[in-house]
């Protein structure tokens, strides 16, 4: 059985990030002949004497014309062991928004460092954002090793330097690999130039990383998406609650409590796309049938009676502001979407803004602008059922939407109270 791994990459064109992705796709045969011919043709037309693998990821006209990456691009490749989804994001500070987006669903983050330049402000920022968004596996790729004569000393210095910074972050595990994306060393095949390196190649590492235990299998949280009530005579008595199991293991026979009503009953059955099951685990989409007919609707949450989230109208959160046309400040109001629930949120206070490069907290700042991250307190029109983002990505995350433009303006991470 092959499973699915999502990883995020961030970096600028200079780091060779697009080249690294191109190399992964190319060497794992995730790239098709006509795509290759396409970029060969464009590289030639531009007068390059090499095939510019970055053209694979830069798909929009403006990106090709300006040689920049604007947005998050998703790429796919598979080996017999795993299917991979790459969220590829640009690395500059003005693209913090895109990095946060890419990292929000990633299991692993690749941090790319140019061996000649060492750890930069940008690599520290990437590591900070990835760990902030709950990515628990970091892979430090020290690239362009061919340009530093495959020096073990250079590699070790960079790794030590990075580790010193990473100690300030909450990192699940960190691996480091010396690579040359351009030549392919240690990306898919082992390099002959790094006999001193004992670790796995990048692809082999990605294939073998154990991410299943990153999920929260303890706290049952089932946000109800919709009620399934067939009108046909054959299934008239059927009544099920559809949704995606956010966390925990839900079993037939389990006692459950419905939030916000507090009513309790037991699970009579769990249906999936492939038929009924005895137990469900994340990220399964399921339909839960209950033993008693009680009032449950979209936005409600099924939990275990002895393990409930915080039910609150007051939320402390880190906010990443994503809108260029407005800023966030106290007393502003937004629509908020948390799990399957919409409500309205009032900003009570902006406590501080974090400098994403130095991690310094600016308590004097009371406004968040595009790409800013800061701590805020919100008052919500109706209770939300939240857990801290660190413990639960699904019930600890929300988005803010501007009610006049309908644009998604912020990502929010619930903090432990």
């Amino acid at each position: 059985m092959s499973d699915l791994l999502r990883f995020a990459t961030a970096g600028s064109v200079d780091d060779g990030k697009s080249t690294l992705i191109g190399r992964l796709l190319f060497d794992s045969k995730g790239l098709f002949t006509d795509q290759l011919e396409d970029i060969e043709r464009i590289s030639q037309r531009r007068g390059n004497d090499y095939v510019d693998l970055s053209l694979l990821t830069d798909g929009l006209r403006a990106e090709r014309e300006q040689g920049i990456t604007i947005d998050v691009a998703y790429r796919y490749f598979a080996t017999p062991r795993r299917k991979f989804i790459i969220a590829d994001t640009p690395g500059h500070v003005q693209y913090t928004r895109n990095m946060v987006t890419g990292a929000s669903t990633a299991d692993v983050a690749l941090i790319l460092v140019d061996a000649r330049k060492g750890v930069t402000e940008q690599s520290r920022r990437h590591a900070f954002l990835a760990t902030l968004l709950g990515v628990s596996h970091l892979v430090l790729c020290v690239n362009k090793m061919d340009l530093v004569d495959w020096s073990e000393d250079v590699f070790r210095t960079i790794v030590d330097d990075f580790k010193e910074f990473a100690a300030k972050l909450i990192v699940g595990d960190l691996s480091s690999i010396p690579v040359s994306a351009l030549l392919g060393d240690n990306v898919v095949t082992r390099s002959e130039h790094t006999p001193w390196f004992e670790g796995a190649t990048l692809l082999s590492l990605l294939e073998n990383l154990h991410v299943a235990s990153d999920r929260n299998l303890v706290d049952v949280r089932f946000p109800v998406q919709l009620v399934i009530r067939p009108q046909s005579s054959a299934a008239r008595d059927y009544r099920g609650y559809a949704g995606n199991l956010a966390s925990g293991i839900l079993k037939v026979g389990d006692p459950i409590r419905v939030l916000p009503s507090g009513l309790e009953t037991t699970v009579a059955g769990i249906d999936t796309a492939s038929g009924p099951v005895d137990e469900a685990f994340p990220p399964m989409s399921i339909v839960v049938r209950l033993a008693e007919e009680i009032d449950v609707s979209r936005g409600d949450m099924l939990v275990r009676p002895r393990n409930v989230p915080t039910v609150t109208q007051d939320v402390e959160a880190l906010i990443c502001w994503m809108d260029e046309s407005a800023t966030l400040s106290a007393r502003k109001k937004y629509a908020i979407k948390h799990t399957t629930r919409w409500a309205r949120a009032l900003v009570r206070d902006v406590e501080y803004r974090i400098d994403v490069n130095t991690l310094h907290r600016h308590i004097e700042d009371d406004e968040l602008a595009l790409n800013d991250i800061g701590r805020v307190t919100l008052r919500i029109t109706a209770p939300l059922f939240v857990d801290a983002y660190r413990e639960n990505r699904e019930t600890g995350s929300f988005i803010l939407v501007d009610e006049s433009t309908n644009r998604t303006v912020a990502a929010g991470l619930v903090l432990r109270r």
Partner: protein
Amino acid sequence: MTSRVLDQLRTLESESIHVIREVAAEMQRPCLMFSGGKDSIVMLHLAVKAFAPARIPFPIMHIDTGLNFPEVIAFRDRLVTDLDLDLVVASVPDALARGEVREGPGGSRNRIQTPVLLAAIEEHGFDALFGGARRDEEKARAKERVFSFRDEFGQWDPKNQRPELWNLYNGRIAPGEQIRVFPLSNWTELDIWNYIAHYDVPVPGLYLAHDREVVERQGMLYAVNDFIDARDDEVPAVRRVRYRTMGDANLTAAVESEADTIAKVVEEIAAVRLTERGATRGDDKVSDTSMEDRKKEGYF
């Protein structure tokens, strides 16, 4: 089951069903675009599963270019009966007859599908349209959101897309605007075939290798049919072929193949080195950014 890890197909299935249910719960009047191709067949199959045992709570729409393979139309009509679906047909020939659109050079009806689609959306008041597009198909698609916002002209603005985080989708729109929804965004062509094989999803027989009279044109094999005549210098020959995509019968080429079962198709796709569009679609070869340009105009 003890490891409690979903395999990749069930992970993708789960994610797609979540997206389909979100749309049904939040949008006023959704509609599922059905082309008769394998992607829209899988998407429809997932929609059936998302609401079972209830029926699908929205109609499906087919843009009939008048250039469909007859096998595809027959397949569509059978599905509509079997699944008790509401079918909306937006007809390009009708729009041509009314003079609302005009055919492009070479008889391509690819570009004129867009105004016909937009007119049908307006007529029926649809605010969310499911499309079967995948991000691995094309480089402009690789940057499109799962919930893709379109303004009142149906236009896509790639530089002004809504950030999309976790599985929190924002379907809020003003009247006249729409959301295009792509539940299969994260699937690849091989995933689609693996899924069809694993769950025995029925597909039109054109996808399997069969003998057909074809002519070779610019390296591609075109069936001789109601829509394509052999030119004077072309000699039709019977070859063993199958189709990788279901586009218009006058533009979609077949590929030589011995894959006459779904299992063999999966094997063939796993080994193939050309993208499906590159191999079979004359309409995407116009420029580096032809897909991006068409999407900006309101195309899927």
